[in-house]
């Protein structure tokens, strides 16, 4: 047992008073580093959210391609589905990040952050940055694995831009949803219970395995309303679908760029709305 001994030294009042208030960026950087250290301490914590999407990209999608094999809108089936797997990976990754918020709240870590001299919405921003960074890393791994398995990308600067904007917007939106749930649901069990309807079910109505036009009319309409449908159409448009067939299924317009801009607008709208909702929920629930 180590004894508590010695004296606590304290700087002179002058030195202490020279201390600066934490700037916004410095605070966000500290909060993000903390979240990263908690969320990704080991490779295992990075790899676990990748398992299901990698299983899709490396096993299920090639098997489906071998079985059905029919190109969709001129895109080979392997590439068509592999890119869409982002629609599963990003929500799973963001929901896992949200679990850290539940742990912070129930484990007490949040109270120390609330007592810190920083603007409280920055706590959400710090978490958001890490969630988006981890999602991006996992998306890169997924695309690499799919390419090794046979997916073909039609890369251009503009296409990569559409892809990146859609993916980032989707990650921001999904983390916003995760943060709202993490602050509103009282237990980890309830939070995990919310994962399938939020992160998995929409994936199957968003044109992941087939165009949404192949769904019954009512479900097609529902699919068009889901942000994930717009994300999948955009990431395909960016990497594999130069004609924007997915965008045409949603908007039915003639100008592909305009349709892409509209879909990106939908994704951005969801991202902004869910982030605002996350901050509002955090503010209302964190301080009693």
């Amino acid at each position, binding site marked *: 047992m180590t004894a*508590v001994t*010695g004296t606590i*030294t304290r700087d002179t009042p002058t030195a202490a008073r020279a201390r600066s208030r934490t*700037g916004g960026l410095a605070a966000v950087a500290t909060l993000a580093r903390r979240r990263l250290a908690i969320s990704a301490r080991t490779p295992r914590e990075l790899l676990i959210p990748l398992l299901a999407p990698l299983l899709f990209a490396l096993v299920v999608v090639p098997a489906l391609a071998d079985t059905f094999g029919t190109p969709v809108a001129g895109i080979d089936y392997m590439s068509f589905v592999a890119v869409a797997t982002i629609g599963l990976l990003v929500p799973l990754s963001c929901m896992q990040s949200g679990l850290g918020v539940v742990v912070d709240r129930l484990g007490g870590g949040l109270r*120390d952050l609330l*007592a*810190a001299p920083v603007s409280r919405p920055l706590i959400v921003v710090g978490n958001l940055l890490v969630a988006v960074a981890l999602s991006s890393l996992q998306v890169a791994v997924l695309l690499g694995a799919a390419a090794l398995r046979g997916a073909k990308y039609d890369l251009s600067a503009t296409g990569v831009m559409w892809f990146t904007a859609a993916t980032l917007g989707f990650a921001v939106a999904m983390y916003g949803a995760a943060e709202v749930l993490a602050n509103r649901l009282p237990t980890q069990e309830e939070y995990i219970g919310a994962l399938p309807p939020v992160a998995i079910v929409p994936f199957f109505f968003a044109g992941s395995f087939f165009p949404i036009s192949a769904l019954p009319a009512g479900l097609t309409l529902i699919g068009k309303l889901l942000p994930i449908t717009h994300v999948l159409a955009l990431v395909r448009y960016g990497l594999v679908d130069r004609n924007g067939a997915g965008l045409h299924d949603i908007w039915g317009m003639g100008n592909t760029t305009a349709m892409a801009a509209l879909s990106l607008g939908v994704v951005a709208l969801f991202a902004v709305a869910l982030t605002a909702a996350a901050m509002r929920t955090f503010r209302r629930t964190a301080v009693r």
Partner: protein
Amino acid sequence: MTTATSVHTVARMTTNHTSAIRVENLVKTYPGGVEAVKGIDFAVPPGEVFGLLGPNGAGKSTTVGMLTTTIAPTFGRAHVAGFDVASQPIAARQASAVVFQEPVVDRSLTGRRNLEVHARLWGLDAARTQKRIAAVVDPFGLGEVIDRAVDSYSGGQRRRLEIARALVSEPEVLFLDEPTVGLDPRFRFELLDLIAGLRVRAGMTILLTTHYLDEAEQLCDRVAIVHQGRIVALDSPAALLARMGRELVELRVDGDVSRMVSSLRARGLADDDAFAVGATLHLPIHDRPAREAVATITDMGLGVTAITSRPPTLDDVYLQLTGERLAA
């Protein structure tokens, strides 16, 4: 990026900055109508160790929560280091630090990482962060464990880390909410000694909540006794004890306690400050030897099943004021 600004350049709302903590008619009513704090007032001058003493549920932690801006007051005002906690919450938090009743460390991180995160959030640069960590690690006996994940710490080590973390930022005002709960007696004693040394060596203002009377007597310059959300007494421990006289006679009564009190008053053996808790009657003895009072009561042949005398404690002060025992 926000320009780094000295916290002390932020205007303090009070013109008379003589109190490190000032609380005026503070009220907290939780949703559902639970009134945790029912209008309390107190002021703590700089450098004082001030205790909020009361049982669980008295409103002590809620008061600390409002002062640290982690709980929103329903009504009233509070200033910490001169900053209004409602209109200048960030400045108030910058000038203070808190050790919460429940553990609030990041258990998956190392002790050092916990200290670094706290220091950076409180505005210390990298060099000063390392200097401050070095200054608190050894006095708290954390040298051997500081680079281990907090998951592997004992309860006492974790508690010491939390207090060390609060001190890293050199707060003007330190809030300690039940700091020794759950510690074994040895660490509790050592921690009390360390806390007592903080004021002497560091000159900071400390607000301590506790339901341990010995902690309040040992550490606090003044104590506010809190009962059901209200302050029922506020004075130095010595002054509070002086109210109880030199000794206290306890009578275990077999029968009507109030009739017993009347009998004793008629004989001049009980003053207005006599009080009963259950079947036990407490008689503060001010102006005569306790053994004389005990002998007289015994000779009276009243229905007393046991009689003892002893020096009064803060527990007796609390019992007199509230009719409840402090600690379970």
